[in-house]
């Protein structure tokens, strides 16, 4: 395997930016955002350079590693801090640094009036560095460092405006739920090390050929928990909606395009484990299928534009996880949907930020309406992202989602029709709620009050949106032309294609079904919202299902009833037992000493004669005792 010495610059540049801005403090306020953007752009340039180098090598020599230093060396246990750049990681590197740089540029203007803008950019750079470490680490342990780093950056950025208690709570919620997933990842690493004796991807892949299926299933299930926590998948999905408390560029970068897709990366990277552990693979599929419907249903009921988009993110990642769970046939398509989703969802989040920017930070879509007249650029870029996500040809989402639906139908056995129908249903609901967002925001009658003066955002903000919109239009076509992305990625999966042997339906039939589902969703939304007047206040007289969906399908209620309250009871029980038993014993010893002391104190009369009498009695008793014993 080749080695290279310049991979590390990918991480070093943004890391340097973060450290410089955090240590530099207020002195760097004036130019901090420029440094951070330059570092991110520099990292992107290194990524492009690496891609060019990689394209120049033959397929077998494309993956390269760089060993930085020996990290842990205890006896026979050796772990290097090493980076692995292969066809899969370069996709992520370019997505992270490319979209990341655009969002840096956008944030320069979006955060202009925030006095802590420098700190914001430091965290963004920290995130970029951690995320790159996550996708570049050559072992699960190196990945884990990045995994925790992005969790930290996510926590810091969700709670960036932590002067509002609700936002601080949201960041804590995200952190705690992520920790549950992190626990899964650490268990997976421990099991891998205990049973396979190594944690590098290459080593585990090698060892997985002759490992027991039970061990691989255990590792797989733990990896699914990890992926569910980071990617907001069922049952650890509840944090993503609240994570929208962070500034909108953060929602676009971390909670739409990159960090939340780390779970998909983890599963695809661990393909050798899931291929050998069908049970774990089935769980992946089930998690993906549940979340894709779950998120879509939540999306239909949200009036907060960012939360509607967050629910949509959850649902789209459900598609990716589902694809990753379909085995070798689905890995490349999951990654393709991940990349196209990175473009159109980041673009739409930036669009939502642009709308908020012009609407005094209002997020309630019922207070929007007719913004197409006032924000034409935002309307067009958001609209292109909208067409991409619902899957209208020839936009990016059509290709990637269509391939996923097709693969789901081809899953074989009873799985195929079930998963295929679920993905079709998801596509229809996606079309419904995204059309609803579109209509409520841009095309229905204006519902804002007279104090609001909607206006288009400055060029620094719409330029990244335009670039991302171009990506939403073109990437799908580019990736699928001649199966470019699939052929590019296949060496990573140790696979040589040739699994499209039998189709349940012909691809064209699947496309027609998907388009029909989308058309039905769009039509329902059109008649329900465009034709009718939209109340500016959400109606309260609604069906049980609407209420249930507004409450996020009871995800918080469930977590509170099943985990939070019993947890609180357990802790209060532990506090009580600590108070009564442990502290009670300590206090009891003290009280015993005090009470016996105060009782014995009575003998201290101060009269010398009584002391003498005690001494006498004691001496006599002692002698009598000795006498009795020795007799």
């Amino acid at each position, binding site marked *: 395997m080749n080695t290279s010495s310049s991979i590390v610059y990918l991480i070093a540049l943004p890391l340097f930016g973060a450290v410089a801005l955090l240590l530099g403090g207020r002195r760097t306020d004036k130019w901090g955002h420029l440094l951070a953007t330059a570092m991110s752009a520099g990292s992107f340039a290194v990524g492009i350079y690496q891609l060019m180098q990689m394209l120049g090598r033959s397929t077998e020599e494309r993956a390269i590693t760089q060993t930085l230093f020996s990290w842990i060396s205890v006896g026979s246990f050796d772990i290097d801090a090493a980076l692995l750049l292969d066809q899969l990681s370069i996709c992520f590197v370019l997505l992270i640094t490319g979209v990341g740089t655009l969002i840096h540029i956008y944030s320069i203007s979006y955060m202009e009036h925030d006095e802590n803008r420098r700190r914001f950019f430091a965290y963004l750079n920290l995130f970029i560095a951690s995320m790159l470490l996550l996708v570049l680490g050559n072992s699960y342990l190196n990945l884990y460092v990045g995994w925790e780093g992005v969790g930290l950056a996510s926590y810091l950025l969700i709670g960036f405006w932590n002067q509002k208690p609700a936002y601080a709570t949201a960041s804590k919620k995200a952190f705690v739920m992520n920790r549950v997933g992190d626990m899964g990842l650490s268990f997976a690493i421990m099991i891998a090390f205990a049973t396979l004796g190594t944690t590098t991807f290459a080593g585990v892949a090698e060892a997985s050929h002759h490992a027991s299926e039970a061990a691989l299933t255990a590792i797989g299930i733990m990896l699914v928990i990890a992926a569910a926590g980071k990617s907001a998948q069922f049952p650890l999905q509840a944090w993503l909606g609240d994570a929208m408390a962070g500034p909108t560029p953060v929602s676009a970068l971390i909670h739409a395009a990159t960090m939340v897709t780390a779970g998909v990366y983890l599963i695809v990277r661990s393909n050798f484990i899931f291929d050998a552990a069908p049970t774990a693979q089935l769980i992946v599929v089930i998690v993906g299928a549940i979340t894709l419907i779950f998120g879509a249903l939540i999306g239909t009921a949200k009036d907060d534009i960012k939360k509607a988009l967050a629910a949509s993110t959850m649902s789209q990642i459900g598609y990716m996880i589902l694809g990753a769970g379909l085995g070798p046939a689905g890995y490349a398509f999951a990654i393709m949907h991940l990349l196209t989703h990175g473009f159109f969802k980041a673009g739409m989040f930036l669009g939502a930020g642009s709308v908020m920017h012009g609407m005094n930070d209002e997020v309630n879509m019922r207070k929007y309406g007719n913004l197409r007249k006032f924000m034409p650029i935002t309307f067009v870029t958001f609209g292109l992202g909208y067409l991409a996500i619902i899957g209208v040809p020839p936009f990016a989402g059509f290709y990637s989602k269509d391939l996923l639906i097709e693969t789901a139908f081809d899953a074989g056995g009873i799985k195929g029709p079930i998963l295929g129908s679920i993905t079709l249903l998801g596509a229809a609901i996606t079309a419904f709620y995204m059309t609803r967002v579109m209509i409520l925001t841009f095309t229905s009658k204006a519902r804002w009050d007279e104090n609001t003066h909607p206006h288009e955002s400055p060029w620094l903000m719409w330029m990244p949106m335009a670039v991302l919109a171009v990506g939403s239009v073109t990437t799908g076509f580019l990736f699928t032309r001649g199966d470019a992305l699939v052929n590019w990625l296949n060496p990573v999966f140790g696979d040589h294609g040739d699994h499209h042997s039998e189709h349940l339906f012909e691809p064209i039939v699947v496309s027609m079904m998907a388009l029909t589902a989308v058309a039905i969703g769009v039509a329902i939304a059109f008649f329900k919202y465009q034709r009718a007047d939209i109340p500016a206040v959400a109606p309260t007289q609604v069906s049980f299902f609407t209420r249930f969906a507004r409450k996020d399908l009871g995800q918080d209620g469930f977590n509170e009833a099943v985990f939070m309250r019993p947890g609180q009871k357990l802790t209060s029980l532990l506090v009580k037992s600590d108070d009564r038993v442990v502290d009670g014993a300590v206090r009891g010893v003290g009280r015993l000493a005090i009470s016996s002391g105060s009782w014995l104190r009575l003998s201290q*009369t*101060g009269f*010398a*004669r009584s002391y003498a009498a005690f001494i006498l009695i004691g001496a006599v008793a002692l002698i009598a005792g000795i006498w009795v014993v020795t007799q």
Partner: protein
Amino acid sequence: MNPYNYLYLAGILFTIGAIGVVVRRNAIVVFMCVELMLNAANLSFVTFSRINGTLDGQVTAFFTMVVAACEVVVGLAIIVAIYRSRRSASVDDASLLKR
């Protein structure tokens, strides 16, 4: 003469001394009773020495006398000091240490 008689005498002297210490209030008398107990102990040392035919007890008796003399010096000084400050030599009056 039966040496055990000396031991009985020592016992009687010790008992008298002990009762005196517990019962009498005057510090001087308490003091004399303490001396009586010391002398009872001395007497039994000497007697045991005689019974066993060794000199250890005799030597110890001398040590005891020296210690007793020192004790008398210190004790009498304290009693005089207390008497000067409190105008009383009663041991029950000097019970301030309990608080």
